[in-house]
Structures are given as structure tokens and as C-alpha cells.
């Protein structure tokens, strides 16, 4: 039986959204993820679409447990984000958002590297419009930088794919491993999209510059596609454990001093992806389950947090912590929903983050990664600090900014409510999520040891926040830009290039000048040498030589007239 690949409905509805208006468009956009998701529920495992291309077999649609859970997560994320953006009247955003969601879904069901590459690049080209749709100079330049880096990742993937085809004589996307040129190239390509340290700045640079609704879409798809790709291609690659551990730790320092609250969330997104990368690197059944389920939960709770901050931005027009505060008085529903998201990302027991993150932590201990485990523990405390406390505290509490705005439109509230419901639902009844995971481990997060340890860790982190605040040692929110690695390519490299080029042009001018002067001197020298000598190069000739030449010409005339 020919199955419809799940990315197709999204692309079709993107086309319909481009030519329709108003409620028709809304109904079609809402129906797409619901129907496609229900259809996906029925699809059995296996390869459903393949054909030959040149000498290789392409598999644009392959279903197994790993791709399915990401497929479900992306359908849920698309559904929530579409509800959240129902009020938007901007065809550009609506069309590209649908195509973006479709590309992400296409990528996780791609069974070969070439199909993956196509969706990989589509992800970049569709999502950048969600950044540009903000229509400010800042978003335009941030989008450009984003696009350059994303396309670069795609090109590396393509080159890696070519090497892979040459090395293995197949394009099938399964375990790759860090062997040979192909393995490393594809790894780097995945790493760029996964926001590995030093190549992470596209995320913290571009996401906060996107539109209110665009960021919600962005936060769900790109990095999770990369996590999926790593989980399929590089499970058990030890290097990932260390990369992931760094990813969990370094962003939290930046998040603590960042003023733009959506940028704080962007940093915490890297931190959460770090947990998934560690899980993939450990590579045991429990660790992979932890990574995958954490990706599933992160799509929802990070979406919820971005939605709540989006609601604040939408209603107040401000997103800097230094400008906000006291909003709980007039935005009580948003406040409550944001706190649910904050509790989930902080992995409080009974919230979704707890049931997935604890798997990665347990796997790290089981496999003897003691120091990694300590780093993850520190990152868990840190994420509570910056995402769990800082976000709600500075937006909704802290000092009263005097801003009085109501809760956002109902569609935004409904989207947040669904996400919050899922966060709590998964936290209370994790078995539902566990049944979707690639492996069956019989893991139970709710034993007394785990619950007590996690609650102690979190509440004493909260105590630290209170203590630091009361002592006046907590860094105030300041209007500022904090330098990160992107300074290298946004400032240092351009400045260095500029000074190199200005040096080169100075040297060049000096050399030319020197050459001209020397040439002049040489000519003058020559003419001086030949002064009055009647030679070929002399500037002046003696009068005698002219008289002689006149005589020669006259003699020639005479001779010619004579022979005529």
C-alpha cells in the first residue's frame, strides 16, 4: 500500500494557506497536524516509499520507533504553535511555518542521507523567514547570519554524504560512527545544527530576534531534528558525552547575566539539548530512552516558556528583564502557565522534565561517568536558577514596572494551556510517554531516592537565589550585550580583516608610489646621461644635429626629384 509521507500534508496546506484567507486558512492549518498525526498513529513500522536515483536507493519515508516519537512530538508542537499563532495576519509567516514543520517531519522520516540533506536545507530556508518576518534591521542581519551557518551545515552534510556513498556504497541512514572522513563531516554537520559549543551562536543570536510566534516554531524543530540525527547516526559515541556535558554547563552562566528573556531561554535550550547529547553519547538503552524522551518533553515545555515570554512581548512590546516586572497583577493566567513550564524544565517531580532528565542522569552514574554526572547535577540546579526562577521572577514579579496589560488573546492562552496540560500529564503519568520510546526499560522515575534528591537539589537552589537576593549579591538585570563566541565572527574577524586589508592597501599604495618615484628618477637619470648627445633617449638635442637632419631631408628630396 502506498502511504502518504507525513510531510506532504504540511506542504500542501502551506500552498493552500498561501492562497486562502481568514477562517478557511485557520481551519486548514489546524486540521493538518491533527489529521496527519492521527494518520501517523496508524502507520506500521517499515519502509513505505523508496525509489532508485542514479545508482542509489532513496528512501524518503521510513518509519521506526525512533522516528515515530519525534514525528509525534513535531505534530504536537506544530498543532500548539499553530493555535498560538492563529491571530497572526501575515501570509509569509504562516506559509513558511507550515513548510518548516513539514521539513522537520520529513527529516525524521528520511531513510537515506540524500533525502535527509534535502529536508535539512529546507529547514534552514523556511525557518529563516520566521526571523525576517519581524521586519527590523536587526532581525534581517541576525537572519542572514543564521542562514549562512545553517546552509553551511547542509553543505557539509552533502559533502559528507558523498564521501559516505563512496566509502560504503549506500546512502541508507543508519549508524554512521566517527570513522573516516564521511563520519566526521556528517558529525560536524549535525553538530552545527545541534548547537555544539563554539557553533552555538546562531541559536542565541537568531531565535530572540524572530517574531513572537516564529520563535515558538523555531524552538521546537531545528535542534530536535539534529538530536534525532545524532541519536540515529552516533549513539554510543563517547565524544558526545563530553560535548553534551559542556553544553549543559556553559550556557547557564550566560543565561544568568542575559537581559533579553527570550535569549535566556535560547541559552537554556542549548543546556537542555546538552542533556540529550549526553544521553546519546552514553548510548545505553536507558540513556537513549532518556535523550529521546527529554527531546519530546523539551519540545513542549520549552515551547510553553517561549509562548509565555512571547505573550509578554506581544502585550507589552518589551522583553528585557530590566523593563519588566509585576506583570502577575494583570496577567495572572500567563504567570501561572509560565510557572508550569518553569517547573517542567527544572524537572520538579510531577512535571514532565523530571521523568525524562532523571533517565540520563541515572545512565551517567550507571556507566561510571562520575564527573559528567556532577556536571549534569550542577546544570540541573543551574537550569532551575535561570529558567525556573529567573524567567518568571523578572517578568512577572520582581520590582513593579508599572506596566498594566491584560492576558494575551485566547488562542495564545489556549495553546499555552494545552502545553501546560501535557507537561503535567506526562509528569504524573509517564507510562504513556514511555510506551512510545524506542526501548522498553521498565524504568520508574518515582522512587523515594530520586524524588527526595531532586527536590532537595531544587529547593536549596531556590534558597540560594533567595539568599543572594536578600544579600544584594544577585546580578541586577542590566541593559547590555554580553559577548559570546559570535564576537569572533561579528567583531574580531571583520575588524581583523579590515585592518589586514587596510594594511595591504597601504603597503600597496606605498609600493606603487615608490615604483613611480623610482621610474621617474630612472628616466631623469637616463635623460641626464643623454643630455645633448643626440642619442635615442636624450631629452634635448644639439642644434647642430637638427641642421644635419634638415640637410639629410633636403638631400633626400633632391635625390627623389632627381630620379623621378
Amino acid at each position, binding site marked *: 500500500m502506498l502511504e502518504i509521507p507525513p510531510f506532504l500534508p504540511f506542504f500542501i496546506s502551506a500552498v493552500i494557506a498561501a492562497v486562502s484567507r481568514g477562517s478557511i486558512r485557520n481551519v486548514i492549518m489546524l486540521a493538518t497536524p491533527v489529521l496527519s498525526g492521527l494518520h501517523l498513529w496508524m502507520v506500521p513500522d517499515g519502509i513505505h516509499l523508496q525509489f532508485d536515483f542514479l545508482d542509489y536507493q532513496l528512501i524518503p519515508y521510513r518509519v521506526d520507533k525512533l522516528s515515530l516519537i519525534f514525528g509525534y512530538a513535531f505534530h504536537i508542537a506544530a498543532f500548539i504553535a499553530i493555535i498560538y499563532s492563529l491571530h497572526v495576519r501575515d501570509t509569509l509567516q504562516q506559509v513558511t511555518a507550515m513548510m518548516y514543520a513539514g521539513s522537520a517531519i520529513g527529516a525524521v522520516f528520511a531513510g537515506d542521507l540524500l533525502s535527509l540533506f534535502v529536508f535539512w536545507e529546507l529547514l534552514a530556508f523556511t525557518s529563516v523567514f520566521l526571523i525576517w518576518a519581524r521586519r527590523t534591521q*536587526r532581525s534581517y542581519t541576525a537572519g542572514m547570519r543564521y542562514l549562512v551557518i545553517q546552509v553551511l551545515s547542509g553543505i557539509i552534510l552533502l559533502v559528507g554524504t558523498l564521501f559516505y556513498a563512496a566509502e560504503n556504497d549506500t546512502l541508507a541512514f543508519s549508524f554512521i560512527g566517527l570513522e573516516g572522513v564521511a563520519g566526521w563531516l556528517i558529525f560536524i554537520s549535525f553538530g552545527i545544527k545541534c548547537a555544539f559549543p563554539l557553533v552555538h551562536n546562531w541559536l542565541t543570536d537568531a531565535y530572540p530576534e524572530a517574531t513572537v510566534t516564529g520563535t515558538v516554531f523555531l524552538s521546537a524543530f531545528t535542534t530536535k531534528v539534529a538530536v534525532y540525527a545524532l541519536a540515529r547516526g552516533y549513539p554510543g559515541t563517547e565524544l558526545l558525552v563530553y560535548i553534551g556535558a559542556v553544553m549543559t554547563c556553559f550556557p547557564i552562566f550566560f543565561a544568568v*547575566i542575559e537581559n533579553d528573556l527570550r535569549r535566556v531561554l535560547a541559552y537554556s535550550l542549548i543546556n537542555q539539548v546538552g542533556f540529550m547529547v549526553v544521553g546519546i553519547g552514553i548510548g545505553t538503552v536507558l540513556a537513549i530512552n532518556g535523550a529521546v524522551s527529554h527531546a519530546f518533553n523539551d519540545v513542549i515545555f520549552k515551547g510553553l516558556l517561549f509562548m509565555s515570554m512571547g505573550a509578554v512581548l506581544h502585550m507589552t512590546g518589551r*522583553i528585557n528583564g530590566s523593563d519588566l516586572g509585576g506583570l502577575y497583577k494583570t496577567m495572572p493566567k500567563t504567570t501561572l502557565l509560565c510557572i508550569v513550564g518553569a517547573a517542567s524544565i527544572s524537572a520538579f517531580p510531577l512535571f514532565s522534565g523530571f521523568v525524562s532528565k532523571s533517565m540520563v542522569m541515572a545512565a551517567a552514574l550507571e556507566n561510571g561517568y562520575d564527573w559528567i554526572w556532577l556536571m549534569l547535577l550542577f546544570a540541573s540546579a543551574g537550569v532551575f536558577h535561570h529558567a525556573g526562577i529567573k524567567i518568571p521572577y523578572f517578568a512577572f514579579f520582581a520590582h513593579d514596572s508599572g506596566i498594566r496589560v491584560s492576558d494575551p488573546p485566547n488562542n495564545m492562552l489556549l495553546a499555552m494551556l494545552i502545553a501546560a496540560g501535557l507537561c503535567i500529564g506526562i509528569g504524573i503519568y509517564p507510562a504513556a510517554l514511555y510506551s512510545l520510546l524506542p526501548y522498553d526499560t521498565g524504568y520508574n522515575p518515582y522512587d523515594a531516592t530520586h524524588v*527526595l534528591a531532586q527536590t532537595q537539589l531544587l*529547593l536549596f537552589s531556590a534558597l540560594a537565589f*533567595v539568599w543572594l537576593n536578600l544579600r544584594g549579591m544577585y546580578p541586577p538585570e542590566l541593559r547590555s550585550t554580553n559577548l559570546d563566541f559570535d564576537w569572533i565572527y561579528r567583531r574580531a574577524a571583520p575588524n581583523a580583516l579590515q585592518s589586514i586589508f587596510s594594511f595591504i592597501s597601504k603597503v600597496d599604495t606605498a609600493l606603487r608610489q615608490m615604483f613611480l618615484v623610482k621610474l621617474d628618477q630612472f628616466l631623469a637619470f637616463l635623460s641626464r646621461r643623454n643630455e645633448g648627445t643626440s642619442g635615442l633617449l636624450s631629452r634635448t638635442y644639439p642644434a647642430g644635429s637638427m641642421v644635419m637632419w634638415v640637410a639629410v631631408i633636403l638631400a633626400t628630396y633632391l635625390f627623389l626629384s632627381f630620379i623621378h
Partner: protein
Amino acid sequence: MENEKPSVDKISFFDKPKNVKRILYLLYGSCVLLLALDFVIHRHVMHRWENLWGFYPLYGFVGCVVLVLVATWMRTFLMRPENYYDEDKSAVDEKPDTNVKQSAESGGHDVDA
């Protein structure tokens, strides 16, 4: 967009210092209780450090304090003015008004309505 509500001008919950105090005491109480539970609940530990009394509370508290202190210290060499990256071209031209315009433009208004 700013819907002034007359009802909010009354004192809100956290405007009363007494309520803030109550929340804080609740937190202190929970912390003490959780520490006490360490004696009662038998843990199935996987790591020897977990056996140390008060390992998780101490680690959470110290970790967060260190996090904040280090982050604050990082400000001394990472912090730049808000329009640091925006001013590259206009700063050379010495036109202050273009800077003002740029920061007003990028001041975080959204255009999806």
C-alpha cells in the same frame, strides 16, 4: 494595547511584605523538612558521594552561589552597551541620531498583528 484595569490599583498579593515573608518561611520550612527526611528515608545510592549527609542540598546551594558569582564576574569582561553590534557603521560616521533611531527600531516590538 495597555488596558488599564481599575482593580489592579488595589494592593496586590506580593505588595504586602507579610505575604512575601510567608512564602519565604514556607521555603525555609520545606528546606529544613527535606534535610530531616535525609535521616528517615533510606536511599538506594549508586554513588558514594550520595551517601554524604546533605549532599544534594549542599551541592544545589553551593552550585548556585558559585554560578551566580562567576556569572557576575564574567560581566566585568563580557558586558558591552546594548547597541554594541548595531553601532559598527554609524559610529564611524559620528552621527548620534542614527544610533538612536536604530535602537528604537530594534527595541523589541513585534509586527505580527
